[in-house]
């Protein structure tokens, strides 16, 4: 009955009392234990399955609708570079392209794996038990962030592999090596973009005592930044750079520039511009091109590193956004008292 086979004292080995050094070695990398448990929870959760199915269906629909026109034009378009990548960016018949779909639905993945991360522990009363174990306090939030990113990375990899395979079957051609590299770059950017939303929802889960409040706040922010951002940017642009009836082209341009600037406050826009460039080697700009600039541009394809340079500040902004949000969650969590 009673665990007689072992000593109740903390000495792990009977011949010597653990030295501080021994304990330092023994108790490092606690975040990995937290991450492993959280990752298993995520992957086994119903919400993971639901979101995976949702994103996979949306992705298949996008790729399916894109593949039709590509097939039709395939014969006449043999000189088109990277036909395979068009699967991800082409949006005929008002069905958004795959990368646009991901821009809208991806945040839901991030929100789903973060909104109850810390307040859920508080609500269940597991936090005092967890912090009393030999791990550093920050390892709890680090482990949760790592687990969330891993779950997102796994989900995205599965979905992208699935839709790529489906697209390859529909088109009858596979991706070239450079297509694969670009798809991987797109994948990496998508993971960072969703990690930003994960960090946001993690922050909300630290700040808000109730998971439902955190989820609602996250969804409100998601709606504003992805679905309504275009509307808001339009209103702001029309208010400050009105386009009168006798508008000059400068007026129109100023209006469009302001609208774009406002839109770029949304991570969704940054993500779309960055992935748009990465998935389309012929894209030579992320900004506004007036017609004559477009005519002057030489139709050519860019190597990947040139595309990356084109989108570098969008990429850096996404990474910085994720880092800042996670840092805010981290600092707030570390300052909170254990008792709610």
């Amino acid at each position, binding site marked *: *009955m*009673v*665990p*007689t*086979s*072992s*000593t*109740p*004292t*903390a*000495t792990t080995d009977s011949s010597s*009392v*653990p030295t*501080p050094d021994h*304990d330092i070695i*023994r*108790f490092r990398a*606690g975040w990995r*234990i*937290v991450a*492993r*448990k959280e990752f298993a*929870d995520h992957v086994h959760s119903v919400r993971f399955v639901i979101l995976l199915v949702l994103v996979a269906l949306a992705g298949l629909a996008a790729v399916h609708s894109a593949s039709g026109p590509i097939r039709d034009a395939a014969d006449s378009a043999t000189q088109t570079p990277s036909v395979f990548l068009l699967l991800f960016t082409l949006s005929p018949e008002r069905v958004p392209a795959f990368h646009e779909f991901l821009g809208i639905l991806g945040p839901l993945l991030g929100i789903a794996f973060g909104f109850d991360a810390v307040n859920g522990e508080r609500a*269940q*009363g*597991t*936090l*005092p*038990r*967890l*912090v*009393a*174990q*030999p*791990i*550093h306090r920050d390892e709890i939030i680090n482990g949760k962030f790592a687990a969330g990113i891993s779950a997102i990375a796994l989900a995205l990899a599965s979905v992208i592999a699935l839709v790529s395979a489906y697209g390859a079957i529909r088109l009858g051609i596979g991706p070239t090596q450079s297509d694969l590299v670009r798809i991987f770059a797109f994948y990496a950017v998508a993971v960072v973009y969703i990690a930003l939303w994960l960090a946001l929802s993690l922050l909300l889960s630290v700040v808000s005592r109730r998971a439902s409040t955190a989820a609602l706040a996250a969804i409100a922010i998601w709606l504003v930044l992805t679905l309504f951002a275009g509307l808001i940017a339009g209103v702001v642009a029309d208010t400050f750079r009105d386009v009168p009836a006798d508008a000059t082209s400068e007026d129109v341009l100023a209006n469009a520039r302001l609208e774009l600037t406002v839109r770029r406050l949304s991570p969704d826009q940054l993500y779309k511009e960055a992935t748009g460039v990465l998935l389309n080697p012929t894209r030579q700009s992320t900004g506004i091109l007036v017609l004559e600039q477009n005519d002057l541009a030489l139709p050519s394809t860019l190597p990947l590193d040139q595309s990356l340079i084109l989108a570098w500040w969008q990429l850096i902004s996404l990474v910085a956004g994720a880092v800042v949000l996670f840092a805010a969650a981290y600092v707030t969590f570390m300052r909170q*008292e*254990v*008792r709610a």
Partner: protein
Amino acid sequence: MPSATDADMTSPPLSSGAVAVRADGLTKRYGDTVAVDALSLDIHRGEVFGLLGPNGAGKTTTILMLLGLTEPTSGSALVDGIDPTRDPLRVKSRVGYLPDEVGFYEDLTGRDNLLYTADLNRLTKTEGRRRTDELLAMVGLSDVADRKVGGYSRGMRQRLGLADALVKQPSILILDEPTVNIDPEGVRELLALVARLSDEHGVTVLLSSHLLHQVEQVCDRIGIFVAGRLVALGTVDDLATDLDQWVFVVGVAGMAEPATVLRAVDGVHDVGHDDDRLLLFAGRDVRREVQLAVSDHGGYLTELTRRGADLDTIYHRYFHDPGES
């Protein structure tokens, strides 16, 4: 009876000496309120120490400071010879903690909850499995170990919490209000387990409670903690004596005005009524005097028992001025 191996277990780890927990002027302020006020206290190795006090007295804050989960404003603590503020990981690796209102991952089984704790304490997979099995058997949860905790009763959760605190094989066990919200039978079982851990394994136990009568029989010593200050310290009997509070239940028959007669007995402070019996509050053992006085007045005793140092009385004495009672 302790066997040879038990004797080995009770021998304290080197270097830590006979004091398991030492608080020295431990103070915690939140803004203007003082949660814990210059607490100095030694808890000896192997004893069961009860920290008694009303809700909000600073018991949990004290425990959090001992675990290094909140920093003292001033003063220091040594737990198993280690300063929890400087080296919280080493303290947390050897102190088992059952928090107030313990919670578990509702969607995981009882066993999986314990295995997670085993992982966090860096037990190997086999070690963790073995330890978890033993502890589940010890707290009587083997049958339900593979059910989700969501379906556990409060008493089961509390016992699982005790098992959870023991996963790391602690030399010190801290239980915060372990008897709250569980039925009397659950309280009895839990305290029997605590007593056995202390007797058979020499684990030092610090338990906090606001219900003295529930925990007095398992505590070797108690400290009365009111409004952040330790106002009394000692065995239950010591405290009762110090407080001039010996309480006797007296049943008298065959005489008139027994209360008046008993109030006149030397050493008796006060007489109260408890149903048809009398309650004597005295500064010492006055049973002999009571017996003589009753027979002098032609009556006889139907009952004369000491009511085990009545913490209600102690509480009343110490708690009536702080806001909460």
